[in-house]
């Protein structure tokens, strides 16, 4: 398998790697090469959403994205989400509503919700947001506190 250089911006900083195999997933590059382990590894099959990052502003499953697909992109992970004005409000809303238990799904939810607000705007109705977060699984909260966090984040952004 050939390894080639890859470069992108992650949380505003350039990351240049010289030997990324063609089949390597963005999730693994971020976690094991860039040392950004806030992005969580769950299923690796695109079903749980724990690995969601923003690629050029769009919520993206990093487990199903080849690192080379993200060449030249601007990537935002949970570690950088509070540098984003929308992300800062989303994090504050999750904190205010204590919408965290084990925390393993939390980075994916925070990043995905930030991306949804950026794509669709803060006026997006709550039920639409909840539907769109259906690809992010949580086993602890029953989603009740997360739904409260979504509503609280929307209020903050409006």
């Amino acid at each position: 398998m050939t390894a080639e250089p890859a470069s992108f911006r992650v949380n505003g900083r350039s990351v240049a790697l010289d030997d990324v195999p063609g089949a390597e997933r963005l999730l693994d590059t971020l976690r094991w090469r860039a040392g950004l382990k806030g992005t969580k590894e769950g299923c690796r099959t695109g079903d749980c959403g724990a690995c969601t990052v923003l690629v050029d502003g769009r919520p993206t499953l990093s487990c199903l994205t080849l690192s080379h697909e993200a060449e030249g992109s601007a990537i935002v992970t949970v570690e950088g989400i509070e540098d984003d004005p929308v992300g800062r409000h989303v994090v504050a809303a999750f904190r205010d509503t204590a919408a965290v238990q084990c925390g393993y799904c939390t980075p994916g939810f925070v990043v995905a919700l930030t991306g949804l607000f950026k794509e669709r705007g803060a006026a997006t109705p709550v039920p639409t947001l909840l539907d769109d977060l259906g690809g992010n699984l949580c086993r602890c909260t029953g989603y009740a506190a997360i739904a409260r966090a979504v509503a609280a984040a929307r209020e903050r952004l409006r």
Partner: protein
Amino acid sequence: MSGLVRPDLTEKLRGGVVYGTDLEAPGMLWGALVLAPPGVGRIHSVDLSEARARPGVVAIGAADVPRLVGGGPGDAERPPFPTETILYASQPVAAVAAPTLAEARAAARLVRLRAEASTAVTDLERVFPEWPGSGAGNSPSVAAHVRARHGDVDAALARASTVVRETYRTAGIHQVALEPHACLADGGPGAWRVRTSTQSPFGVREDVASILGIPESTLTVEGTWVGGGFGGKGASLLEPYALLLAAASGKPVRLALTYREEFLLGRSTLPAVIRFETGVAQGRIVARRVRLLLDVGASLPGRDFATGYSIGFLLGPYDTPAFEVEGYAVRTHKPPFGPHRAPFAPQCAFAVESHLDEVARVAGLDPVTFRADHLWTTGASTPLGQTVGAFGLPAALDAARRKAREWRATMPPGRGIGIGLGFWSTGTGAGGEVRLALGPRELVVVQGEREIGSGSVLVGVAEVAAHRSGLPRGRVRVEYRSTARAPFDSGVFGSRTTAVLGRAVEEAVGGLLSELARRCGVAGTARLVEEGDELAVEVDGRRRPVRELLTAAERDGEGVVAEGKFYGAGGAIDERRVEVGAFYGYSDFTGAAHVAQVDVDRATGAVRVERYAAFHDAGTVVDRPTATAQVEGGVVMGLGTALTEEAIWTDDGRLANPGLLDYRIPTLAEVPPIEVEFLEGFLGSGPRGAKGLGEPPIVPVPATIAAAVRDACGAHLTELPLSPERVARALKLV
């Protein structure tokens, strides 16, 4: 609520806490397990030579175990790798480690297993197509056999005006913690260390030491943050393999399951068949006969706890003058049965509630009133002869009936409302110990449980310490330490942390306050208060700064130290009623009544839950937001058990749906609004009368949904989950 409520919020929201899957160490190797395929039995050979020929690869099998850890013989009944016969598909037969994960996985594929073909039996009804006959207790297919009785069941059934016989079936389910199992082992002989994502560091230490035959004193287990447990991370799973690979390679070894492997070899609740025979005369239950076949997979004979414990939940929570209960733990070619949040109790409640609903209807009685008329109350005697402690379930049922009436008045046409009850015993389990260290500015609770997400450690334990000492919670810090540095604790399971460890905390704080009073020269009771930036002791209306009361050594060290311990115990049953095997008494009687409103799609059989209410007796509520969050989470997990979650094994021994696409858990798009209410005043054995709450919320859910489905469309379902296909069949749509 604020960040103070959950001290872990800020770091978790930054992605800053280290879970098992995040572990790495300089120079480490990546491990991988070699799993047996389905349909094989006796082992001829496990050939590691091709794998070992790869550069940098370490490979180990059963033959390598004795020389690797240098201890005595390990537990002969549960060797890390099978030596003669493979017990289930996906049982690990070898393990490899390599400098990268890709190399490890490639090497794992080079391990050659030669074994005899064997017919896998994964359907327990194939093991016993008929009820097991006398002598079945000695069958190699039976891991445990239990029987209890009281009164003359046959005579009572003969006298009954109505006798209802039914059979229920429940599915195997998975915990589905989002974080797969992961650990990292390093060290060397005499000083091994395993860092791991676990609910029980001390339990893992005991387990690994026993499996490998090494003294516990030579192994330190350090818990990482845990990305969900739900019972699946209570015992060791990967740790012995990681340690063996570390021993073989002389390097740190990281070992994690893929999510597919998580399904294939995780331990959880397995399928069951439950049979009832219930007699009624003059509106009262006169006798019940209950039979259980519980699939326990490859559980070891004589070590099954589940059957004798779980079967009790098929007898309650209802008065029954005469009963006979018999259960078999049936071995199949599946991974061993393991605990899953209130193990098997939701399935029991589903069967009991649905059956008594049917009994009432056949007898011409109102189903909810019928259950209410038989419900245990405080001071009643259980069928096994234990006295029921303070029990809020009757009050919870009253509240649930009021809620159901309110909803029915505003319910759109075609919908249905159901009420389900569940009970569970909390506050049992082995004990826990804590050490307190009081410094000038904070009270530190040193203990050995990792917060697994519920808040029971970081909120529950902290709140108990704060309340007892007089301090605001922000002045209490709960500190986790490894098995080498923390006092013993049995772990986060069995709804026990706040209730059991909390008692140890109360004792320790009491001792600390006495010591502080003594240092103030007073025999009375002290309490702690904030004074400026620091803490002070208040006793007899006078205050002394804590700093003044510390010796020089204490100021430089941990502060004033105090210890507490609490070992809970189950209540006694009437052993004369036990004929075979072991049955268990309960500690705190904890109960909940739930209400659901559902809509059933008359074309597809799909059930949509529109609203849900949960009424809980949790004794004294220690922290309301955290308690509410436990109930919300438990209810939704239960909706999965009720509606979608089902592990499917094929006849050739394969798990057919080892992934989240085909094993569906609830998502944000389909959960209903949930109302939560606590019925207080029924005091348990925990701090200030608290009862455990981790498990009870899941117990009544499948029963509640089944009752609502029946109310909506008349379908009486006797199998879990209530999938669209089963509902459609019950409605004769297919």
